[in-house]
């Protein structure tokens, strides 16, 4: 199927690639269907694009590329909601707030989007308020770990 995207124009996707966020994202609960579109090969960044509304498109990042010690636990309820069978099916992405210059951009480590890559469902999980999980983690701290 063809979808309109925010940055890539019209893109052909397969229906099975669609990720359902039953509760949407916080503040944007009305949009529940998304796809991940690669930004470029081997990049820790990707587009997280609503299938329903072209203007709802984010840049997301694989957080571990930017903060190697990033780790969190998921509660039993969230595991059930995400239909987790194997922990390795889960992938976490952080929403990037892109700024100019790129180094001043931030990652939302407090509320990652956790996706079950097999079941194609996901959820924005709010982690317990903690210094290790800042809402605006400066992307510049990557110090060349991403090439």
């Amino acid at each position, binding site marked *: 199927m063809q979808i309109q995207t*925010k*940055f890539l124009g019209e893109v052909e996707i397969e229906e099975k690639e669609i990720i359902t966020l039953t509760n949407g*994202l*916080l*503040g*944007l609960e009305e949009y529940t269907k998304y796809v991940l579109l690669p*930004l*470029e090969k081997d990049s820790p*960044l990707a587009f997280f694009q609503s299938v329903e509304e072209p*203007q*709802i*498109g*984010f*840049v997301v990042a694989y957080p571990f590329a930017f903060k190697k010690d990033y780790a969190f636990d998921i*509660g*039993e*309820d969230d595991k059930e909601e995400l239909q987790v069978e194997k922990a390795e099916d889960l992938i976490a992405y952080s*929403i*990037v*707030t*892109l*700024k*100019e210059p*790129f180094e001043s951009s931030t990652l*939302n480590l*407090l*509320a990652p989007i956790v996706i079950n890559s097999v079941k194609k469902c996901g959820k*924005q999980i*709010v982690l*317990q*308020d903690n210094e290790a999980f800042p*809402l*605006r983690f400066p992307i510049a701290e990557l110090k060349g770990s991403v090439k």
Partner: protein
Amino acid sequence: MLVLSRKLNESIIIGENIEVKVLSIEGDQVKLGIVAPKNIKVHRREIYESIQEQNKAALNIDANLIQKLTKKR
């Protein structure tokens, strides 16, 4: 909204296994202790509001920046 008055060290029970207790009152600040099962999430309201705002702020992306990012190949 149900409104209850509580004094220091008094508590309320929500459902069967959530307890909210007033631990201290100092000026305009109240310290609450919450005992709840692990699966009950407790967050300060501002946390949710700030995440909602951050999600919306993240939508505001300059297309030129995207071009720069993808040109870095």
